[in-house]
């Protein structure tokens, strides 16, 4: 019993003395911190993808709380999360549309003609400084997969020398579009069901010489849905502010098989390899 009493006294007094010390120190060296930053950071995805342009999620949280960035700056967040953050901070959330990246190119190795053999670093950005890799087309995908390595979400796969975005995995952070040396990965509304898978600005005759998958600029699709497709020079694109629905594929009957839904495009790319293997 004696032991217990004394122990309690000794430990208690020591604790109190030290506690007092800390209390004084905490007062003296106090640092103001905004507790909201941690809260907001907790709501963000925490992937630190850098898609917002800040150094990671907690940095974005700091900037959102300080009002230097809008609550919807994170490209990855779902709309509900943005609303939650805005509500927490007492701001009005702006609506944002979900975007996905898309590689507008059909230049698989099976489709492409090679201008030269490439011997060097297998990285798009390095290759771009050196004749742009081996493929003849200078507008299409180089295919060394720098975007795939950059993607934090594993949404890009390089199949047969062509980067393909899996829209169901893509969160639209835009890092791939940023890193692509040809700047040919586009961020488009996820709602757009079809894309024209060719990025070339060359004359159709020239581009068909270089790539069997190139758009031939026949404009059948534009004629089918004039409002919902756009063409500039020789380049035909889906009008992403007023996207057509998937039925345009049927209507247009694209002779180059360039106007496709992402699923059809993926299948075509995969089939290309099989065909090649069959031929070999």
């Amino acid at each position, binding site marked *: 019993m004696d032991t217990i009493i004394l122990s309690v006294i000794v430990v208690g007094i020591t604790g109190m003395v030290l506690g007092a010390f800390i209390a004084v120190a905490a007062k003296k060296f106090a640092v103001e911190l905004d507790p909201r930053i941690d809260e907001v950071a907790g709501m963000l995805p925490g992937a630190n993808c850098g898609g917002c342009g800040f150094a990671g999620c907690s940095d974005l949280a700091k900037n959102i709380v300080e009002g230097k960035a809008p609550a919807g700056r994170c490209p990855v967040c779902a709309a509900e999360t943005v609303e939650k953050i805005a509500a927490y901070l007492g701001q009005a959330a702006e609506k944002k549309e979900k975007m996905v990246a898309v590689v507008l190119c059909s230049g698989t190795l099976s489709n492409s003609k090679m201008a*030269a*053999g490439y011997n060097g670093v297998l990285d798009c950005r390095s290759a771009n400084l050196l004749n742009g890799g081996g493929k003849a087309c200078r507008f299409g995908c180089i295919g060394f997969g720098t975007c795939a390595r950059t993607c934090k979400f594993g949404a890009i796969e390089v199949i047969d020398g062509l980067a393909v975005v899996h829209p169901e995995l893509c969160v639209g952070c835009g890092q791939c579009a940023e890193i692509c040396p040809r700047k040919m990965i586009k961020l488009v509304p996820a709602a757009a069901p079809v894309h024209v898978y060719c990025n070339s600005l060359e004359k159709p005759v020239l581009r068909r010489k270089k790539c069997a998958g190139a758009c031939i600029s026949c404009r059948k699709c534009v004629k089918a849905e004039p409002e919902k497709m756009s063409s500039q020079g020789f380049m035909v694109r889906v009008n992403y502010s007023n996207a057509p629905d998937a039925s345009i594929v049927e209507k247009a009957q694209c002779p180059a098989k360039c106007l496709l839904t992402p699923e059809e495009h993926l299948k075509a790319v995969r089939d290309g390899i099989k065909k090649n293997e069959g031929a070999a």
Partner: protein
Amino acid sequence: MSEENNTVKLPEPGSLIVSSSPHLHENSSISKIMLQVLLCLLPAVLAAVWFFGLPALKVMVYCVAFCMLLEYLWCRLMKQKSTLCDFSAAVTGLILALNLPSHSQWWLCAVGSFVAIIIAKQVFGGLGQNPFNPAAVGRVALLIGFTGPMTTQWVAPTPGAFVGAFDAVTTATPLTLAKAGAFQATTSATPLSVAKNCAENVDPFAALQTADSYWNYFIGNMGGSLGETSALAILIGAIGLLAFRLIRWEIPVAVLGTMAIFTWIVHTTSPSTTPGPLFHLLTGGAMIGAFFMATDMVTSPLTRRGCVIFGAGIGIITCVIRIWGGFPEGMSFAIVIMNALVPLIDRFCFKRPFGWTHASGGAK
């Protein structure tokens, strides 16, 4: 004009290769370097076979085979291109073998090879990425894990007696060794262990430091690991290494120089603590460590200054362990410890680019 065009042969479009400059390359490759190292190890191998007979050859074959097998299996497992052809596994295996006692069992070789190839090299990403010298790590692991077989079961050298040496294997117990009679205390254990055991005597090293024994140490007529014994053979190999430009001379010079100075100071201040510098240089792993293990390209510093610091560190740590530590030999420990320091050394022996001045560097 067009007729002429038809007769003139020009490069086909699409047949050309584009690559970054330069378009000329020196005639060298990794496998060539490794083969040159193997060639330089040949004198040591021959010396080991001469002194320890066929069992020594067996140990070397085991180690090289296990190392190459493990490398091959790893590449298969990781679905990589096989890296057997660069011969780096063979070099590791052979150096490991030269660090083992002559009558090592096959399982000792296997464990050492596993540690060297898998744990010290491949899990770090393979050739070029390993921060530690694989052979040194293999030996350190064996020294710690199997202290007995690694430090006590020495066999006396039997110069030239290849088959007789095999008999020693079958009866390799301390008893039979003692019964053979012809051996002196110096040969039934490595000279280093003797030095350690006798440290309490007044002049314990007299027997170890005669001109005769020095000659034996030099040519390798003493107990010890396969490659540790013959300083002569290692030196012949070292000439090859230097001639092939495979090593930087700064490292062995720094290692051996520091060891000599350090042991000289200790020896002169207190002769009963340790034998003189020559003894230390010629016995144990000093030579093979300084020339073949410390100089491993992957795990040594890049700059000259760094190499000197690296070598000096190895020398000092080796001597400290030899003189005061619990193990008779500290070379491989020292190498691994200094390997760990290499990134720091590289960082602080930073080279300034050509034309760098304090003014321009400071203004940055």
